[in-house]
Structures are given as structure tokens and as C-alpha cells.
């Protein structure tokens, strides 16, 4: 009986089993789906952007899991760009949210209904 902590997944140079990768991908997909549910259901602008950050996070887990599976560093390098885009998005989106809040005195997404066109 192997040690429970290192079962089927030892450290870096050892290859990882495809089924282990599948477990990580399932976790990442579930996190993405939860973030999507939040983006579609919540009506507060700030929480909606928080949910997009949650989806970025899920994508990062999938990238790192693939990086571990293929034993190269491409996935981890791409997480740096996920971080870059998340930071840029947070700066722009929050500036926009503050601007919108100052105009209508409300964070609700439905006060901007006229933008539906």
C-alpha cells in the first residue's frame, strides 16, 4: 500500500497519470461553471467582475495541471499572462464601475438597461 499522501502523484520529474489529470480538469471545470453561474445570476457590477476573476482562476488551474502532465513549463508561463490580463481587467473594470456608480448612485446592473439597445 503506497503512502496516501503521495499516491499516484509524486514530485516533478515523475510523469502524472491521465486519470489524475482528469481529476484536476474536472475541478477546474466545476470552478469555471460556478463562476459562470455567478456572472449570469448576480446583479451587482462588482460581484459580476469578481466572478470573471473566478473563471480566470479556474483556467489557471487547468493550465498548471497540463504543465505538470506534459512536464514542461509552458502552462506555468501562460499563467503569468492570465495574471497580466486579470490585473489589466481589474484596473479598467473597477475604474468603469466607479464611473458608473458616480453617475447613477447604484451598483445594480439593471439601472443600465437602456444600453441593451
Amino acid at each position, binding site marked *: 500500500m503506497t503512502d496516501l499522501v*503521495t499516491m499516484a502523484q509524486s514530485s516533478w520529474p515523475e510523469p502524472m497519470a491521465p486519470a489524475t489529470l482528469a*481529476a484536476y480538469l474536472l475541478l477546474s471545470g466545476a470552478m469555471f461553471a460556478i463562476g459562470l453561474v455567478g456572472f449570469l445570476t448576480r446583479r451587482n457590477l462588482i*460581484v459580476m467582475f469578481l466572478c470573471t476573476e473566478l473563471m480566470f*482562476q479556474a483556467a489557471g488551474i487547468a493550465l498548471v495541471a497540463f504543465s505538470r502532465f506534459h512536464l*514542461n513549463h509552458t502552462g506555468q508561463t501562460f499563467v503569468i499572462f492570465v495574471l497580466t490580463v486579470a490585473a489589466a481587467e481589474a484596473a479598467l473594470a473597477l475604474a468603469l*464601475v466607479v464611473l458608473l456608480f458616480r453617475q447613477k448612485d447604484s451598483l*445594480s446592473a439593471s439601472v443600465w438597461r437602456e444600453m441593451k439597445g
Partner: protein
Amino acid sequence: MDSIINPYLLFVGLAVAGVGVAMAVPRKRVNPQVIGAVIAGVGLGVVLLGLALANLDAIPNLHFYVFGLIALGASLRVVTHPRPVYAALYFILSVLASCGLYVVLSAEFMAFALVIIYAGAILITYLFVIMLATQSPSEERVEVLAEYDVEGRRPVLATIASFVLLAGVTSLMFKGTAGLEPAGGDDRAAEVLVDAAREPTNTESIGVDLLLGRPGTIEIAGVILLMAMLGATVLARRQVDLEDEAKHRAAEQLAARGGLVREEVQA
């Protein structure tokens, strides 16, 4: 070749998890959030258990389950918590749990970068904006949750859309990942650091991969950040006036608050 997980088990588990998530979305009157969270956990747990039982020789280690449970629970709470400040704090918890997963996947450098940049910088900006954009409770007024925070919009439709997407993506797992061969690994850092007479560390490998493999991308990242900074500055310094309707609402609120104080003085 047998499939990596039974498709019926996967779909039934995801459907159960979807019902749980739909129940956990905030509602006005009946709010079965805890029951919803438990049902969602059971659904996803069934799928993970099925995945583990079908591949007994490839069970992820214990830390995967611990960190995964924390990450998913915290994400569910981000989505369902009616108060934005708490949602942001739970998001920090889910970032920390993902960092645990990164360490399990031997990506130490990215784990620490995630803590510093995400939990340390981006989320603090979010917290600042949440505090700027919500009215603080004063002494004579109990905090009232905004109407748009209390009630979700079309929870059932949104959950169906998301979980159908999830089922579509994960159904590739039946045979897809089993067909993948683990690559032999191409660690260029080992060639670059050939004089070092030791294994390259994770940080060194990422640095070599970034600078030798993809030199142009750093420039692109720099341009993205510069444009975001310029855009945010332009947006933030614009002076805007309250619209008439919002002015009216603010005046009413102030009047109501003044009336409350006056009543208390009279009493």
C-alpha cells in the same frame, strides 16, 4: 480502451451538482443555501469518487481533495454571498486554496506569485472599490442590503447553461485524456544551466521558458498593462454629475434619514 469514467455517472453527478448550485443562488424569501451547497458537494463528490474508483492506480493525492474542497466551497460562497465584501474575502480564500493546488502540481513560483498579485494586489483594489461604492451603516441606521444583492437573476436558466457547458467539456474526459501520452519533458533550463551541476529550480525553468521560448510575449504583457493604466487613469479622472433620477433618490434617502433622527429626538 475502456473509458476513464462512466458517462452516466458523470452526467447524473453534474445534474445533481447543478440543482444544488441553483438552490444556493441568493433568493428573497425561502433561501435554502446550505442545503443547496450540500447537494452540489454531493454531486461533484460522486463524480470525483467515480473517477477515483474507475482508476484505482491513479488516485490524486490527499491534498488534492482537501484544497479542491476548500476552493470549490469558497467559489460557491463568492457566487452566493449577498454581501460583496464577504464575496471578495471568500475569493481570497479560493485563491489561497488554488495556490495549494499549484504547490501540489509542483508549480511553486506561480503559487507565490498568485498569492502576491491576486490576493495581495488585485483583491485589495476590489475591496477598496467595494468600500467606496457602498453606503456605510451609520449609528441610527441598521445596514440594509441593496435589493440587487439579495436576489439573483434567473438562477435556473443560468445554472442550466453553465452546467450543460461543463458537461460538454468534461464529456471529453471519457476517452480524451486517457489517449494523451505523458510527454518526456523538454526542460530547456537543464541545457542552459549545464554548468550549474544541479537540477534547475522551478523559478529558473519558468524564467528560461519565458525569456528564451517566448521573448515577444513579455513586451505584449507590458503593452497590455500600460494601456490598462492609461485607460483607468482617463476613466477615473472624468468628472460626472449625478443624473436627475439618482439625485432624487439620494435626496429622498437623506430626508428619510433626517426624519428618523428627528423622531428619535422627539422620543
